[in-house]
């Protein structure tokens, strides 16, 4: 993966596969305290303790098409090469939270990349799932909650409508640009 946002897109697929109805994605940037982190929290099916221990092994996957699952392994390497790491906590029937910590200033820390395109992909391709995207940059905070968008759009207009998806992308971009975050 060339951007951290692509890892976010990839790891969020696990939440979708876990039948989550709400996925909360938070990105935190704080150059002063050398912090760059993201968290993906879902209310999907969760995993038992044994599985949580094994998921970062590339040869562990629940799918049956092949025997490898690289998503979490790739993220783990990306975090560890900056001196960070990932933490996963999960409860069966409750959901899973995965957090990745990076050193903000480390030369090997990949850029966040096009996070608005990632959120547009997630939201428009999974119009029945709710997403909350929170972006914190030092003390600034931006949040997009699809439940608010749904309240305005009503039942007939779906989040997968092309014009709605385009607007979401512009909305995230214009808000993130204010404080120079998302680098």
């Amino acid at each position: 993966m060339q951007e951290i946002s692509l890892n976010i897109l990839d790891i969020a697929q696990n939440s979708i596969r876990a039948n989550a109805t709400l996925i909360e994605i938070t990105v935190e940037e704080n150059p002063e305290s050398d912090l760059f982190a993201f968290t993906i929290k879902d209310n999907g099916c969760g995993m038992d303790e044994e599985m949580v221990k094994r998921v970062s092994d590339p040869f562990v996957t629940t799918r049956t098409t092949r025997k490898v699952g690289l998503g979490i392994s790739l993220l783990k390497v990306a975090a560890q090469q900056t001196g960070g790491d990932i933490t996963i906590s999960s409860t069966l029937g409750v959901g899973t939270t995965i957090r990745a910590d990076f050193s903000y200033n480390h030369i090997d820390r990949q850029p966040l990349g096009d996070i608005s395109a990632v959120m547009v992909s997630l939201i428009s391709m999974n119009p029945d799932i709710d997403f909350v995207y929170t972006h914190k940059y030092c003390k600034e905070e931006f949040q997009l909650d699809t439940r608010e968008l749904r309240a305005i759009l009503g039942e007939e207009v779906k989040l997968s409508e092309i014009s709605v998806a385009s607007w979401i992308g512009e909305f995230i971009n214009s808000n993130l640009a204010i404080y120079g975050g998302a680098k």
Partner: protein
Amino acid sequence: MKSIAELEAIKKKVLDSVNLRKEREEGVRVVVGMATCGIAAGARPVMTAFLEEANKRNLSNVVIEQTGCIGMCALEPIVEVYVPGKEKVTYVKMTAEKVAKIVSDHIVNGAPVIEYTVGAQK
């Protein structure tokens, strides 16, 4: 800066076109592979390009969906186009640059772009 209030106007526009659409048959489905292999190979810019192209041309009968890994990771990004009443067409090694031609030739004019399909792979 954009505000959430703008959504009201978009809603109105969409609702008008939804009413028109009801009289037409079912729309075109564009399905993008979004597993680790697809994402790493560049599925996101491809998906974004379809969205932009469809928005630009005001194609309200197109839906863009995602799928997992279909087992041809080396050919990712893979996009399947389903036109109602026609056979599925599978495009491989997709790039954002290839999208405009697929939208204009295949989705708008009904002629699949053979050279981008999995069948044209050697």
